[in-house]
């Protein structure tokens, strides 16, 4: 039908040439790919290399030391106690964050007046950075709580001055900080469960509590999985609030894993050991991430 090559076909043939593909890819994805490689891929690989050297942060030479950094990382008892402390802190924070967030979500979806106002209000702590939040709470714990304790005839020492008190403060602040964010995810979950399913359950003789437990919660499974994993990763990597609220004190008893890695590298100048310890953190995060995908995919309930 076409005596000569149709212009459209010419363009389609042009589109199959390698030079076209390369130029299109570079034109559209080039900037993102370049920055992504420069900030994530290259440092990640270079970081692997650094764990085999004893770099001090200043000198040009990076002497090769083999596996000495990994040996030092595993022998560092402070690191393991920081890691253990982080696990304890994350455990309590994650449970409390999700309980509080779920209850808040339940309250602000129940049809009470002004529920949009409350949703926006509970979210406020998430707007502000961890550094500022930590200092605000430091004031609350050191001054306001002490003043209340004094007024009640107590001793009036700050909670932040004892190791277990500091841990309690960190957990309390984290719950306060993240509950509003997780609440929004649970609210989306509540909204996705249709009203008619709950009504059907009630007509079949369920009490509201039974309908919640047997109908709504199983259908919100993906919200739970998402909130729990989000809060695990956030808590496990806590740094900003840790720095401003306790700074690791008293007596380094509230140094979390991320802060320990920072101190190891930038304060004590053991860059190789710090990087090796960071990689161990990465492996833990990767295991958590893979588990999330696995659990998220498995056994979703559908209405």
């Amino acid at each position, binding site marked *: 039908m076409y005596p000569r090559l149709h212009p459209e076909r010419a363009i389609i043939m042009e589109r199959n040439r390698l030079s076209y*593909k390369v130029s*299109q*890819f570079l*034109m*559209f*994805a080039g900037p*993102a*790919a370049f*920055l*992504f490689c*420069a900030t*994530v891929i*290259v440092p*990640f690989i270079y*970081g692997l290399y*650094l764990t085999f050297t004893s*770099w001090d*942060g200043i000198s040009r030479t990076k002497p090769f030391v083999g596996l000495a950094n990994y040996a030092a990382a595993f022998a560092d008892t402070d690191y393991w106690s920081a890691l253990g402390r982080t696990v304890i802190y994350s455990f309590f924070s994650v449970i409390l964050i999700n309980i509080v967030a779920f209850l808040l979500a339940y*309250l602000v979806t*129940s*049809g*009470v*007046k*002004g529920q949009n106002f*409350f949703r*926006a*209000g509970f*979210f*406020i702590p998430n*707007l*502000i*950075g*961890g*550094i*500022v939040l930590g*200092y*605000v709470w430091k*004031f*609350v714990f050191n*001054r*306001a709580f002490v*003043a209340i304790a004094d*007024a009640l005839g107590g001793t009036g020492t700050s909670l932040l001055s004892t190791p277990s008190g500091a841990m309690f403060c960190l957990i309390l602040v984290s719950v306060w900080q993240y509950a509003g*964010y997780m609440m*929004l995810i649970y*609210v*989306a979950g509540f909204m996705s469960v249709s009203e008619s399913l709950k009504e059907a359950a009630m007509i079949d003789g369920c009490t509201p509590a039974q309908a919640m437990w047997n109908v709504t919660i199983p259908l919100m499974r993906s919200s739970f999985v998402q909130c729990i994993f989000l809060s695990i*990763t956030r808590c496990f*990597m806590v*740094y*900003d609030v840790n*720095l*401003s609220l306790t700074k690791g004190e008293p007596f380094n008893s509230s140094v979390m894993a991320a802060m320990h890695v*920072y101190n190891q590298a*930038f304060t004590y100048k053991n*860059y190789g050991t710090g990087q090796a310890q*960071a990689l161990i953190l*990465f492996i833990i*995060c*990767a295991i958590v991430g893979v588990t999330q995908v696995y659990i998220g995919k498995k056994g979703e309930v559908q209405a």
Partner: protein
Amino acid sequence: MNDSERALRNKRISHAIMLVILILLFLLFIAPFLLVVINVFKTKADITSNPLALIGKHGFTIKNFPEAMRKMDFWKVFLNSLIITVCSTILTILFSAMAGFVIVRNKWAACTLLFSAMIASMVIPFQVLMVPLVSVYGGILGVLNHRLTLILLHTGFSVSMATFMFHGAIHTNIPIELEEAAFIDGCTRWETFWKIVFPLLRPTIATVAIIDAMAFWNDYLLPSLVLQKKELYTIPIATQSFYGTYSTDIGLVMAALLLAMLPILILYLFLQRYIVKGVTSGAVKG
């Protein structure tokens, strides 16, 4: 009284109880902020003697504000944060929308590789990258202490998540027939993207802008590693350094903390609906 009336009354009572609980919880939630607001208008001596009093013995004062603003160099710090947040957010949106487009519309090996690498990289915590970043950009290239370095690093860290979101949006919401029509009308790919696809991505652009701008504005660790000169400080770094120097002068600290929180709280007052919506859709998709 019949059944439906009783049910209605029970519902009213339970709603009233829930409203009271919500109001109490809300007051508890914002109590720390209220404490800062109360104490910012007091003298140092009044705060120390009673941090819970509404007004101190020496009366109402606004002296803390100008002094804190001067000592933390507030306007300069605010401007630094603003420049870095706005530039990083714009670059993230442009670059990731472009990358998402080419990845959705082509089955090339390079696209698949880039996209899988981006998704896999989301589990890497920042702590793993901070030492090599300082080593490469500080030690080898010597480009720390420039705003541009921080802007590009911020963008590099956020493109993977943003590309993932744009990929989803283009895949589900932009019909390919639109692009074919533009192609027949003589548009190149580049023109098609900017004239047809990008404007249709507005909801996703808003979501990415809100999530990333908030993250950039509040980020502490990366800026503190990159910007070590005082004149480049952002709000979180300036707050931290201010606290380190003036922690005993509690009235000033209150003013500095309030100043650090005010810009985003004022923004929230106006954009509250969009922010809540953006954060929700970002969290639920991501």
